[in-house]
């Protein structure tokens, strides 16, 4: 992976994926209409992601990175959220304007999500295996037995040891890392084309974080998924992403190949963020 010479200021080729995108966000704008006034959380954001590729959307709190990611499946609470402009193109449909029925089919199977805190995303009263199997029962209408076998296989694939036994356990019996693996299994069991992971390792210890990030990279490669990784951590971006979009105050200030952006950042905000990120290797 040698660095290609930077082609001047040609923005379009630099920020475009290498192959045909599976998911395109075009000029997305999102407002939150609150009592105190309107917050323009996302302001004309565009990005694309291709199969087998990881795009990281990085920004600090309030940058609009999560609001833009949740927009893909229209998961922002409405109200106060209002989608004021743009399109989200997936398999020929605009997910912002398609029917609820179509959106329902896309959610959880063609495009799935993993969130930061597995404890709040898992139902504490249900066995974890059932929660993975439920995705298939709901979205694919497969038989109970088939869903069960597929769920055990999915738990096994994401590295849950002794998947048959773990299938029957409840969330509180699992460590944070195992819970996040369960969430990833539930996200993958429907064989999605796109996986959106919103701060998937922020609540985890570093050694566990490393395992989960490596797992996401391996699964992306094996299944040729498009992965959109939402994070505040440039270290996580460097470890996992092919391309990166840097967000600040609702806008993408810079995007491109990870090597280009990290080694030749053009935007002052990107430079500040890189400078503020602590590193192990200090040039002392």
């Amino acid at each position, binding site marked *: *992976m040698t660095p290609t010479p930077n082609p001047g200021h040609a923005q379009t080729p630099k920020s475009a994926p290498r192959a045909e995108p599976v998911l395109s966000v075009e000029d997305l704008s999102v407002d939150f209409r609150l009592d105190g006034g309107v917050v323009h959380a996302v302001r004309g954001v565009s990005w694309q992601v291709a199969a087998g590729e990881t795009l990281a959307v990085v920004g*600090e*709190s309030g940058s609009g990175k999560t609001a833009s990611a949740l927009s893909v499946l229209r998961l922002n609470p409405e109200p106060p959220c209002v989608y004021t402009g743009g399109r989200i193109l997936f398999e020929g449909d605009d997910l912002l304007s398609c029917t609820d029925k179509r959106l329902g089919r896309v959610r959880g199977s063609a495009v799935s999500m993993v969130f930061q805190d597995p404890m709040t995303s898992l139902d504490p009263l249900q066995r974890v295996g059932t929660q993975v199997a439920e995705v298939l029962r709901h979205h694919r209408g497969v038989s109970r037995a088939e869903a069960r076998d597929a769920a055990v296989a999915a738990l096994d694939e994401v590295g849950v040891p002794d998947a048959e036994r773990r299938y029957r356990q409840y969330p509180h019996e699992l460590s*944070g890392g195992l819970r996040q693996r369960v969430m990833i299994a539930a996200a993958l069991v429907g064989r999605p084309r796109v996986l959106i992971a919103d701060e998937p390792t922020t609540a985890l*210890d*570093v*050694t566990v*974080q*490393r395992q989960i*990030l*490596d797992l996401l*990279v*391996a699964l992306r*490669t094996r299944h040729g998924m498009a992965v959109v990784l939402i994070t*505040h*951590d*440039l*270290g*996580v*971006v*460097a*470890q*996992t*992403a092919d391309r990166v979009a840097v967000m600040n105050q609702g806008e993408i200030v810079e995007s491109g190949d*990870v*090597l280009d952006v*990290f*080694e030749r950042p053009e935007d002052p905000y990107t430079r*500040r*963020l*890189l*400078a*503020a*990120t*602590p*590193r*192990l*290797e*200090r040039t*002392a």
Partner: protein
Amino acid sequence: MSGGTSDGTSGVPLLELKGLHKEFGGGRRGHRVAAVCDVSLAVHEGETLALVGESGCGKTTLTRLLLRLTEPTAGTVSYDGRDLATLPPGELRRMRREMQVVLQDPYSSMNPRLRVADIVAEPLVTHDPAMRGRRGGARARLRERVGDLLDSVGLDAGIQDRYPHEFSGGQRQRISIARALALAPRLVVLDEPTSALDVSVQASVLDLLARLQREHGLTYVFVSHNLAVVRQVADRVAVMRAGRLVEVGDAAEVFRSPRHAYTRELLAAVPDPDPRAARRRRGVVAG
């Protein structure tokens, strides 16, 4: 542990832990858990000692023991050469003034109903008779002192009448630091002081802590799970796992050549913001 050997500092350490042990549980079920096991460690005046480990390793229990917020099952904590367990209450109270703490979450560590002035002044009013009373003199002295403290952490002295919710996470953490400095402590325990903050805010808070340490000759016990941050701030590092210290040493040395396998594992897991190195590593991992 060999905490005292690598630094060669002479004299009595400001803080010395010897054979500290803390068990929890053991009620009717009889199931006891050792949160801290045989920890011996010295912290010297003016240094930053980082206490590093993952969740559940006992680092928070250890800080509670060294502040004497929790009684140890066995072992001693000495401050300035004196065993805290044997101090009479008045003496312990005096020493408490010299040991302050800044907690991780600036949202939950201050009373939302108090104004900034009252939050920062609380330790002064509690410990300093000259700052008490309704008379004008005490009030004016207090207000001036709080203003100075806010100023020293980079906040406007005019924010005294505002409430915590009006401030960002970074500003709140500065208010917590001002409160910790109110009694001119010698030792400050910083428990994950920047973990809840954005990176750019984290950088400025770390700069502030470094400046305050220089200006006041403070001693820091810096608890963190973030090795990249520790690399930046620590003079010495103590790595903790399952209640025990597995490695203690000079920070530069521990980061350059970690002796314990767990320290190496922790260091290898840090997501370094270097995509080129990451791609090299991944190339190896993928075969």
